[in-house]
């Protein structure tokens, strides 16, 4: 069954088209990833699916409810973990969860039991009576996840669930996500710009400048790159590019100081290259493709916005300190 159906959804902000005729479906129990750089339209799409933004055109249904006409139905069906924290820092973990339970009308007899269970799941039972302002970034994210699940949603939306977390915390969050899916047949819709993270998804949509450029399983996407990836550095990179094009009919590009190209059966090709290449090589390496390469191949650019997100974090920290 398709739990999310999106048909040609479009959202404009002034003259900027943030999401441009995007269509896709998500099956129940799937981990569905939205992959793209900052500003690609990931968050705009999530906001439309969770009724925070009205699409200018197109239709979308979540759990059978129309995101424009049946907002309440949609809101009851989904849990959300946003990119930036949405907890009340002055309340305790428990109070935050209880507020959520009231707002979503979780029956009284289930309420405390579920709160206990979920705090256990995200390993925050011992801190339940502490104010959220004393929590680390990872703990807050985990608490938000517990909160997003409190009303037993059918779909959990995670917008950059591990943004700004250290690797250990990231792995931790992913363990939780997999456990949830197994236990509750929960559908998970997530956005990320971490390629290694996207590997966890059943299917991935690559989105760039508001448009879907590819939608497939991680393995199939990697096959699109067409073989192994060779990165080499020559004394004269542009001459090397010319030679690779002419002699071996390849399509190399220059990335930073390196020449990068993909080639089937890379090991064999290297031997051939060593024998006949006229330009002087400085270094050479070969590896299997990753989703990074898929993105590069599809858009001609690497997802290189780590700096931007770092700046965002600093901004957020500065804001926190002000109050």
């Amino acid at each position: 069954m398709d739990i999310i159906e999106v048909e040609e959804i479009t959202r404009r902000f002034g003259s900027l088209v943030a999401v441009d005729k995007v269509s896709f479906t998500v099956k129940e129990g799937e981990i569905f990833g939205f992959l793209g750089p900052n500003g690609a339209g990931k968050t705009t799409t999530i906001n439309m699916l969770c009724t925070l933004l009205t699409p200018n055109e197109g239709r979308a249904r979540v759990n059978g409810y129309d995101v424009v006409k049946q907002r309440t139905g949609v809101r009851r069906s989904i849990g959300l973990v946003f990119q930036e924290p949405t907890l009340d820092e002055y309340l305790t973990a428990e109070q935050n969860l209880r507020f959520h339970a009231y707002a979503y009308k979780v029956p009284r007899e289930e309420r405390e039991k579920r709160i206990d269970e979920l705090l256990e799941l995200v390993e925050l039972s011992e801190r339940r009576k502490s104010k959220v302002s004393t929590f680390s970034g990872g703990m807050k994210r985990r608490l938000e996840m517990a909160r997003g699940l409190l009303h037993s949603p059918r779909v959990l939306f995670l917008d950059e669930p591990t943004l700004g977390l250290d690797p250990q915390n990231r792995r931790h969050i992913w363990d939780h996500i997999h456990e949830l899916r197994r236990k509750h047949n929960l559908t998970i819709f997530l956005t990320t710009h971490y390629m290694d993270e996207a590997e966890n998804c059943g299917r991935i949509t690559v989105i760039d400048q508001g448009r879907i450029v590819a939608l497939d399983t991680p393995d199939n996407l990697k096959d699109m790159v067409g073989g192994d990836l060779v990165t080499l550095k020559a004394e004269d990179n542009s001459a090397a590019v010319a030679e690779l094009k002419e002699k071996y009919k390849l399509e190399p590009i220059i990335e930073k100081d390196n020449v990068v190209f993909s080639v089937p059966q890379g090991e064999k090709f290297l031997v051939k290259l060593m024998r006949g290449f006229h330009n002087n090589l400085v270094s050479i390496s070969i590896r299997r493709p990753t989703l990074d390469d898929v993105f590069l191949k599809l858009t001609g650019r690497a997802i290189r916005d780590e700096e931007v997100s770092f700046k965002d974090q600093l901004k957020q920290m500065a804001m926190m300190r002000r109050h």
Partner: protein
Amino acid sequence: MADVFRGVWVVAYRELLRFVQERSRLFSSFVMPLIFLVIFGAGFGELVGSMTPGVDYIQFMYPGILAMTVLMSSLMSGISIVWDREFGFLKEILVSPLGRGGIILGKAVGGAVVAVLQAFVMLILAPILGVSLSFTMVVELMLLIVIVSISLSGLGLLVASRMQSQQGFQVVIQLIIMPLIFLAGIFYPVNNVPVWMEVISKVNPLTYGVDAIRQVFLGSEGAATIGVTVFGHTMTILEDILVVAAFGAILLVLSVWSFSRQE
């Protein structure tokens, strides 16, 4: 509809939780009115006493200061929305099944309960200041304060529906609050002032809130001499309440509309 009612109480409940946890707010919110009472009471009392015939100046000003306390805490419900927006918590409320109307009303009701609590603290000071108070008066005042507070909170909520930052909200609200307080008949009666001031005072909803609260203290005889008159008619307490409530209803509807349109 059930979602709206649940919205009101869930949102109001959180406002109270927050209030209880921020004791400094309780303290600061009645220190300023107290300063007004002491400084204006002592300094102005001798000078403007003649403007309030038959009524001791402190007796005249105290109800006004009480109304001012209510206004201050009512506007807090507006800043609470801006605060939630800045800290992201507003999103958690907005994606929940609670309706927009319920959220806005919940903020107003939460603010009203806080206003009642703060007014109560002010009432404890009444005997010390020589203002007489009876049990029925306290009950009447509490009911009155709930109505006035919910109505006035509409002002803060309407401004808040458009504000992204607390700084922005503070600037706008300060601009509104000053004329509102000084032209509401808190410090002097609004009937014997220059015409332009009288006109502004009489379209100021706080004027009627102050008048209603004052009538509880001074009775209708007091109103006969210093009460607010509109086109020669002296307002009764019921008419005062109607004016305030009508004003509040309009502002709250506008707030919900402005809020829904944006988010």
